[in-house]
């Protein structure tokens, strides 16, 4: 299994998947960092203008406003980073089994003295190493940018890193399972659509939970889509860790559908882990039973 893991990881490096992702991520971080820098400058200018115009804020009001603004921009970064790692997980693995079956590369490997489950688990582990490394670096980069430019606090936030690295692994398991049965193209379309449904459902749930909307139907829709694809729930749990369980009413206005007005339960996190394991088991079972023609 570890031989397949090493080969999968090496493939990601040799085919420059990881390198390309890192280069583009650096670009994203530069743009994001510049955005934070100029937003921080603007906020200081507006505050000075407000005060010189005779305005006044209590210390509590000022702190609350700053905290919400910082959280909003931090969450914005995490939201886009979640999308990036999710797409990397999908596109790096959609053809991991199907394309090798289609072009015959798997024939010589399956004929070796190795169990088919080890091929699948080896591939999963290889991609997991790549995605976990990448996600962790991305999350920490966003965290540090917010800390140094915006002065955001880091305590209590680092715990979210585990959940952040879990997101792509769920998509990886689904993509791998699809790849054992479907063609690369069909698998790509299905996994991407499933991911999109999960994200849109998650947004609808947040909108439905806003005090001025308060729609049970939208919230239920979000829960159902989260059961279909729990990646968005994990993002909402990350948001909950970052913002705290006690919500400021202003969060709904400023953070909006990027926030976690409707917070996922711990049971949903356990469900997400079971979901990942279930798709991994499906991958192994389907691949072990199918003909490789």
């Amino acid at each position, binding site marked *: 299994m570890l*031989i397949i893991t090493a*080969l999968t990881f090496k*493939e990601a490096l*040799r*085919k420059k998947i990881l390198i390309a992702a890192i280069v583009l991520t650096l670009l994203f971080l530069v743009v994001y960092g510049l955005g934070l820098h100029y937003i921080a400058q603007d906020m200081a200018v507006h505050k000075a203008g407000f005060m010189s115009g005779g305005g006044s804020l209590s210390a509590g009001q000022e702190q609350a406003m700053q905290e919400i603004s910082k959280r909003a921009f931090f969450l914005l970064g995490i939201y886009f980073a979640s999308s990036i790692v999710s797409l990397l997980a999908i596109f790096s693995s959609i053809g991991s089994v199907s394309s090798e079956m289609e*072009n*015959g*590369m798997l*024939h*010589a*490997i*399956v*004929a*070796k*003295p*190795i*169990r088919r489950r080890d091929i699948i688990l080896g591939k999963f582990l290889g991609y997991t190493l790549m995605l976990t490394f990448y996600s962790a670096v991305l999350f920490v980069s966003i965290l540090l940018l917010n800390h140094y430019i915006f002065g955001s606090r880091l305590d209590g936030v680092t715990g979210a890193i585990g959940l952040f690295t879990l997101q792509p692994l769920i998509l990886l398991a689904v993509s791998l399972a699809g790849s054992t049965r479907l063609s690369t193209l069909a698998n790509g379309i299905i996994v991407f659509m499933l991911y999109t449904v999960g994200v849109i459902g998650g947004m609808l749930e947040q909108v439905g939970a806003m005090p001025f909307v308060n729609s049970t139907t939208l919230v239920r829709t979000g829960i159902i889509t989260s059961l279909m694809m729990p990646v968005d729930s994990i993002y909402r749990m990350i948001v909950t860790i970052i913002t705290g369980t006690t919500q400021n009413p202003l969060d709904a206005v400023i953070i909006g559908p990027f926030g976690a007005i409707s917070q996922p339960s711990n049971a949903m996190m356990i469900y997400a882990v079971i979901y990942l394991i279930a798709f991994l088991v499906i991958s192994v079972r389907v691949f072990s*039973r199918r*003909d*490789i*023609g």
Partner: protein
Amino acid sequence: MGKAVIETKDLTKVYDRKTACDKICLSVGEGQIFGFLGPNGAGKSTFVKMLIGLVKPTSGMASLLGSPIGDVFTRRRIGFLPENFRYQDWLTGQELLHYHAALSHMPREVRPKRIGEVLKLVKLEDAANFKIKTYSKGMQQRIGIAAALVADPDLLFLDEPTSALDPIGRMEVREIITSLRDRGKTVFLNSHLLSELEMICDEVAIIKDGRVIESGTLNNLLTGKIEVEVTAGNLNGLLDNRIADFGRVLKVDGSSFVIELANEEKIPTLASLIIRSGGRLYNLNRRKRTLEELFIDVVQGGDQ
């Protein structure tokens, strides 16, 4: 025949409603080169894929090296070159062989020496450190053969091993295959290149529509029927009556004809008849059938 290293009994594969292999029974002895022939779509590759473990049989039984097919441990002693050879082209030739050696559980310390040997065998030492994507198709086929051989298997399945090679490359691969036989290895060869199979195979089986329709030692199959090529003048209508009684006239070309005789004793009788009847016998040559002729005869004969 040595002890059987490949044995199948009623091995069958049905895809939806199409029967790719229909109750195939074969036995291949140790130390043989066994040729498996058939027209396109006859079920050759499906049969090999069942033995190798890529495709699950619908019914029937099979064993390789004394163990049931699918036994992972036994696969350590088996090498396989797929028909559509395709390898991780972002690896170098040497890295690919290390990878295949590792997958075959070859001890790490013996890998470098063995990899050097197989690279030399397939004449790729100079290209060992180049990426496979820079290899020509022939070189890719050679590295595929090297990957199949790297674990020094006792049983080797080669599916069209010379399809991308030039005549010299084919000769070299033939030499590799016969040298394997000399070392007691068994080679199961799937190929369309009948002349090549004829040169090296001990036994062959011909498959059509998923069923084995002819099998045996090459010698028996090619000499089983007596064909004689005759060139004679002044036959005076002998061909139309008395000669035709000897057997089936396969071909007539001017003063030459080819006739299939029932047994060897008919040869001197035929010569005697021609001479006694005033014919002038210029040539009488007992022909050995080629594998290609046997193949066409058997495959087309099955259509009738």
